[in-house]
């Protein structure tokens, strides 16, 4: 069974996930402060700019991170594969 992850999917997940998560956080916080406490500072340009920049930066970080985790980036030269005969400890199922 081949693993279904591809760079295209990772990009979609990183960008879509970042937008969804940060939009949820921005709207959630704005809603709580606006409807609960009549605070309007979250509607100013600075919080919107910070949220937008963070969304873009996190999308880029997440994409590159996923690519590194999935060995799409990097050569793997830091590790060598060595064949060994081993016995693996397995927990005994209690009956």
């Amino acid at each position: 069974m081949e693993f279904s992850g591809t760079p295209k999917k990772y990009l979609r997940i990183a960008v879509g996930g970042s937008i969804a998560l940060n939009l949820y956080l921005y709207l959630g916080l704005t809603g709580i402060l606006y409807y609960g406490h009549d605070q309007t500072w979250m509607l100013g340009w600075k919080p919107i700019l910070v949220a937008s920049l963070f969304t873009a930066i996190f999308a880029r970080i997440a994409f590159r991170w996923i690519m590194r985790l999935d060995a799409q980036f990097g050569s793997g030269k830091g590790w060598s594969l060595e064949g060994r005969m081993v016995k693996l400890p397995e927990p005994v199922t209690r009956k």
Partner: protein
Amino acid sequence: MIEFIREVLGPYYLQIKFVHVVFVAMWVFSTSVAYAFYILPVFKAWRRNPNDPEILVARNWVMERFDDGVSYEHIAFPMVLITGPLLYILGGWNTSMAWLDLKLLIVIGLFIPVEIIDFYMSHFGGNKRKIRDSGDMEKYERYMQRHWWFFLVTTPAVMVYGVLLMYLAITKPF
């Protein structure tokens, strides 16, 4: 009920905070070595050599061990969820503090769903050892890959927003 909790546990706010911080540390760091130095090297080797039978044995073994090893994290998380609201009630906190609102939004919207899936993948229907014992090796491979998908998708968010959570809790910036 809230008044009763305040009356009975009020004098123990700092002790409850101590328990909360200990379990937060356990929740955050208990799997870090196993994840970084066992899971990742083996899974990267598998992704570079997907059909190598020896790497498949190593991959399956580390993931099954990780399913058990994550138990510490999954004992700590419910404790965090019990002590956190207690601190909220006893400390007289409310939603006018934006840092706390943001922190709770992150916990409720990100970490609770992630941990529910993690509980399922590690201990319940997705537990690899149980699936292997059932003899359904196709399902075993499917869940092994599903768990890798879970790690790929959640790792960046968990790391970045986990640090942000701690930053918000300590500095209370706004």
